[in-house]
C-alpha cells in the first residue's frame, strides 16, 4: 500500500516512516509542509495519506485545509489526520462530503502501533475512523438527539465502536459478543436510521455520519 506522509517534526516523521515500512506500507513521499503535501498527493495519488493538522508556515490547520482540498481534487482521496487535539468541529468538516475514507486520531494513538495500522488500513479501504475522544464526547450528547434515541444502549455502543473504525470482529471482541450478534445489531442500526440498502461499507459510513451529526 502506498502512503504519503506529512508531518513537520522530524522525529515523528521519521518514526512514522519506519513504523509504516515495518508494516509493509510503501512511503512514497514524506513531506513537512502543506504545499509539498498537495503536490505529492496529486502527483503520487497514494492509497492513503497520513497528515498532521498543524503544518508550516502558519502552524494552524493547514493540514486539514490541504486534506479537504485534496479530497475535492481527487474524489474520495483517503486521508488520516493526526493531531495533538481532536475537535468535533474539524471532525464534522472532514466528514461533510460523506465520501468516507477519512480518519481523525490523536497523535498518541500511534503509540499502539497495531491499532494505528488497523485504523490506517480501514481508512484506505474507504472506512471512517474517529478518535475515541471524539466518540466519547458525542456519546454524552447524542443520547438526547433524534434519531439516536431510537437506538438501544447496546446498539449505540456498537455504533460508537464502528465510528472508531473497528471491524465487526473487533467490535465483537471488545463487547464480548459473537460476530453474528454484532452483524444483527448493525442491521438493526441501519434500519432504525433509515439507511437505504447499498454497499455495506458505504452504509457503515452513513451510519457513522448520522451518529456524528446527531
Amino acid at each position: 500500500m502506498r502512503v504519503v506522509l506529512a508531518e513537520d517534526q522530524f522525529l515523528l516523521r521519521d518514526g512514522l516512516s519506519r513504523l509504516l515500512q515495518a508494516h509493509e506500507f510503501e512511503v512514497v513521499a514524506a513531506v513537512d509542509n502543506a504545499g509539498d503535501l498537495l503536490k505529492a498527493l496529486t502527483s503520487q495519488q497514494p492509497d492513503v495519506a497520513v497528515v498532521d493538522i498543524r503544518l508550516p508556515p502558519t502552524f494552524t490547520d493547514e493540514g486539514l485545509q490541504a486534506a479537504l482540498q485534496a479530497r475535492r481534487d481527487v474524489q474520495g482521496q483517503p486521508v488520516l489526520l493526526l493531531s495533538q487535539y481532536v475537535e468535533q468541529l474539524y471532525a464534522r468538516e472532514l466528514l461533510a462530503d460523506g465520501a468516507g475514507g477519512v480518519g481523525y486520531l490523536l497523535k498518541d494513538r500511534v503509540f499502539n502501533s497495531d491499532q494505528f495500522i488497523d485504523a490506517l488500513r480501514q481508512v484506505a479501504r474507504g472506512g471512517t475512523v474517529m478518535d475515541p475522544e471524539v466518540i466519547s464526547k458525542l456519546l454524552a450528547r447524542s443520547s438526547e438527539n433524534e434519531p439516536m434515541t431510537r437506538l438501544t444502549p447496546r446498539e449505540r455502543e456498537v455504533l460508537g465502536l464502528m465510528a472508531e473504525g473497528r471491524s465487526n470482529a473487533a467490535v465483537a471482541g471488545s463487547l464480548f459478543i459473537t460476530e453474528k450478534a454484532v452483524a444483527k445489531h448493525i442491521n438493526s442500526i441501519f434500519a432504525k436510521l433509515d439507511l437505504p440498502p447499498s454497499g455495506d461499507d458505504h452504509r457503515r459510513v452513513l451510519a457513522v455520519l448520522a451518529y456524528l451529526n446527531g
Partner: protein
Amino acid sequence: MISWLRLMGQAFTLTGLAVATAVVLHVIAFSVIFIPVWIGIPMFVASVLWLRALANEHRRVAGRLLREEIPAPYAPLPDRPTARLTTVLGDPATWRDFGWVLANSFAGVALLAVPVGAFLAGVWYLLYPLLFALAPAGSISGHLFFETNTQLASFVTLPIGVACMALSRWLAPRVLGTYGRLTRNLLAPSERSQLQARVQQLTVSRADSNDLQATELRRIERDLHDGAQARLVAMGMTLGAADKLVEQNPAAARALLNEARDASARALNEIRDLVRGIHPPVLADRGLGDAVRALVLDTRFRAEVSVELSHRLPAPVESAAYFAVSEAVANAAKHSGAQRIWIDISHAGGRLRIVVTDDGTGGADLSAGSGLRGIERRLGAFDGVLALNSPPGGPTMVTMEIPCALSSQKISSS
C-alpha cells in the same frame, strides 16, 4: 405644536427646580452656621447630597435638550458618615455645583423667564374675553394697556394673545437650547475630573486583570505540578524499574513498559486539557467564530451561532471574548435549565458585539453570580462592558461589547 408644549413643560419644570435649588443653597448656608455645633455637619452633607440630586435632574433635562449624555462628575462616597464630609468638601464637583446654583438662580431664571412670561401673558390675553364675560362687571378691567369696558372691546386682546404665544413658541427652543448649553458647561465633568474618573477606572481594571493573570498562572503551575509533571516522574521510575527487570523477568518488564506508555498518554491528556484552558487550539487556528462553534459542540445545548466578522480580531481581544462566551455558556448550562442557546457575534462601528441568549428560566443576577462578575472583570481590561437582561421566567440575554479594531488577517474558512 406638541414639541413646543413639551418644551414649555420643561421650562416650567426648570423654573420650579430653580426655586428648589435656591432653597437648598439657603439650607446649605444655614447648615454652615451650625457646623461648630456638630448638628451642622450631617445637615451640610445631607443638603449637599440633595443639591446633587437636583443637579443630576438638571443634567438629565439638559441632556435631553441637547441630545447628549451629561455624566455626573462626583467622586464615589465612602460608607463611613464621618469620612463623607471630607470627601464632599474635597470634591471639586461640590464647589462647581455651588457656582452653578448661583448662575442658575440669576442668569438661568432670567433666561427661562422670557418664554415662560410670554406664554403666561398669551394665556391671560387669550382667556381675557372669557374672564370678562364671567367676572362681575368692573372687577377685571385693569392690567391692560387700554381700558376695555365692553364685551366687544375685550376681544381686542385675542390677537395680542396669539402674538404672545407665537413669540413664546419662537423663543422656547432657542432659549432652552441656550439654557441647556449653559447647564452643560457648568455641570458636565471638567476635563480634569474626567481624567480623574478615567484614572480611577483604569486603576481598578488593571488591578483586576493583574489578579486574574496571577490566579491563572497559579492554576497552571498547580495543574502542571500535580498532573503532567508527577506523571512524568512516575514514568521515569517505571522505566528505570523495567530496565532492571528486562534481563531476569522480561514479562514483568513488559508490563511495566505498558504502564509507562499509559502514564505518558495520561500526561499528554492533562497537558492537552491545560492548553485548552490557556488558549484553545481552534481559537489559534481559526479565530473567535469557529472557536465558539467548537465550544458549543462540546455542550448539550442545541445551539445556533451566527458570526459576522470579516477579519480576525486582535489576539488578546479574541482570547478575552472567547473565555467570556465560554463563561456565559457555562453559566447558562449550570443555572438556567436552558435547552437552546443563540450566540451572535458581530463587529460594527469599532466595537465587537456578542449576544448570548438562552431559553432558560431567567432570573440571573449580576450581583449574585461570580461567573458574570468574572466576565465583567475580564472585559474591563479592554474597556469592554457587559449588560444582562434576565427577567424571571427567561429568556436570559447577555450582551457584551468590546471596543477594538479588526486585524488585517482574513479569516480562513473551510
